[in-house]
């Protein structure tokens, strides 16, 4: 995972709440077995509307999405994070996020910044008054800067630490392989295994 420290880019106002992961990328785009190339699925249904924000220049070159509450609810599909990244987004700002989406973002290197609804309203107003305005998101300072205004955002300490250092979770965990093996040695015998397979007949 690439390190994330600070990012400056065009802010995109997405004036919608409850943007579920089926809207971020519909299921029909999940059939691929690759890890890249999901940008065409991003907001696929909404992008058919010429008035949709990502069909307007300069928002179509945006890299910081500013959305309403409960962004990324629903399905666990990490493809939603990949689609946002493949399109060019580095940051999503919203008042509330679905738990699984937030977790997936942290693993894949997309920064999700939680701010109060009033901040989202202020960012929306600024981005609509001045399309193409750039925002700066500073993960070290946990701040979003829009022109003269600077707003703090929330992110849990551990996710921030991992993003700042670009750490790979699996490598970190495998440092504790001995602890895993020790735990396994204590598991009760009645816990089920899937192998050898048993069936009802």
């Amino acid at each position, binding site marked *: 995972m690439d390190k994330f420290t600070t990012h400056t880019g065009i802010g995109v106002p997405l*004036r*919608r*709440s*409850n943007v*579920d992961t*089926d*809207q971020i990328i*519909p*299921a*029909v785009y*999940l*059939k*691929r*077995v*690759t890890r890249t190339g999901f940008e065409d699925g991003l907001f696929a*249904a909404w992008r058919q509307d010429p008035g949709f924000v990502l069909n307007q220049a300069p928002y179509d070159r945006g890299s910081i999405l500013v959305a309403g*509450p*409960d962004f990324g*609810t*629903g*399905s*666990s*599909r*990490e493809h939603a*994070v990949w689609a946002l990244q493949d399109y060019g987004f580095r940051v999503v700002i919203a008042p*509330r*996020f*679905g*738990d*699984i989406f937030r*977790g*997936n973002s942290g*693993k*894949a290197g997309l920064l999700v910044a939680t701010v109060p*609804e009033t901040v989202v309203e202020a960012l929306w107003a600024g981005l609509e008054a001045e399309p193409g305005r750039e925002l700066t998101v500073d993960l070290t300072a946990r701040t979003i800067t829009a022109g003269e205004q600077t707003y703090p955002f929330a992110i*849990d*300490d*551990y996710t921030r630490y991992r993003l700042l250092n670009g750490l790979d*979770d*699996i490598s970190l*965990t*495998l440092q*504790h*392989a001995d*602890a*895993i093996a020790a*735990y*396994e040695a204590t598991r009760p*015998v*009645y*816990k*089920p*295994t*899937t*192998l050898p*397979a*048993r*069936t*009802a*007949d």
Partner: protein
Amino acid sequence: MARTLSQKVWDDHVVRAGADGEPDLLYIDLHLCHEVTSPQAFDGLRAAGRRVRRPDLTLATEDHNTPTLDILAPIADPVSRLQVDTLRQNAQEFGIRLHSLGDKDQGVVHIIGPQLGVTQPGMTIVCGDSHTSTHGAFGALAFGIGTSEVEHVLATQTLPQAPPKTMAVTVTGALPEGVTAKDLILTHIARVGTGGGQGYVAEYRGDTIAALTMEGRMTICNMSIEWGARAGLVAPDQTTFDYLAGRPHAPAGAAWDAAVAYWSTLASDPDARFDAEVVIDATQLTPFVTWGTNPGQGVGLGERVPSPGDFADPAEQAAAARALDYMGLAAGTAMRDIAVDTVFLGSCTNGRIEDLRLAATVLKGHRVADGVRMLVVPGSARVREQAMAEGLDRVFTEAGAEWRYAGCSMCLGMNPDTLGPGERSASTSNRNFEGRQGKGGRTHLVSPAVAAATAVRGRLSAPADL
């Protein structure tokens, strides 16, 4: 210190406690896989030269992409076919048990775990699917994960996790006649909203929950994620033990006794404190259906489509206006006047044998209304076999419904079972998001009883309307 059920399960799986804001490292007892969210994880293993640490704690099935007709013919859509073939190759390469199309134990991943008896109380269970919360009905800590985490579990059989907050959802009183577990959970979601449970693990408790069958408890836990709770649990009891006894992977003999002794400790201590509590009076519930485009936008079947002005919050007002437009509904319309062209009975929410029995009881002696297509998709090949042994398939087909093979089917429309633009369904599934069942499709979430009655009348209905 007094602990809740989920805290007990958590504590029993800590491989390494996190310090200084680090998450705990949790051991995972069971990892369920399917074709959609696993291919990139296996690729990651290959790229790093890693193996699957515990193939014997891993189980895979084909469900999301699979057809429900002609299941032994090659899958028509080449992209779906490649994804299913990829799972088959990965399962073979990494030594993972896979129940493929045509296998007697194939089915929706959250139906087959309990059915095989690999879902047991006190376990940690994960799957790259948000409805993994279903398994919480057994007193397991079960939650959905993304593909990066799938790879992590494959490689290490653990997950770094920060402890969640806990919420008690206490339900008391008898469910009125005709009101099901589905109506209960849909009502709860409408009250707390899709974000009401974010950051929490829920425990469903109270005499109403204790009186539910395992199928009913699974329906409720299944939809935990629809109100934002990543997991939802029910304390195991005699109902749980009776369900598990004799299943293929349930313990036997002395191991059974040891397991039951442990499972019996898995209840929240009387003085355990939850971070939040919600109380529901079951006696006041009615059949409940959704009108909008998220599972929180629902009302009683006897009520009317709300107006955006009914909501105080500006974001909810805007969401309601958008939803009415997408759904093609006018505020003030009686829910019972809404005509559907499709009825879907199935999914990990309501595709179990009890759901099929309930719908068949309602449908028996009636006909599906002209112009309505009803799909009955059993949750697993075993459910299908059981239903046929009981003659339920004949009830459905004689009423004019289509009797299909097992899979996720129209719940998310990754296979050919989809709604067309503007088509409207009454669906026993879990999500009414825009386009969920097919581009432009309109979904009303309902119970199996309401689904069957709706099929007969062609409009949203309860069995009492027949």
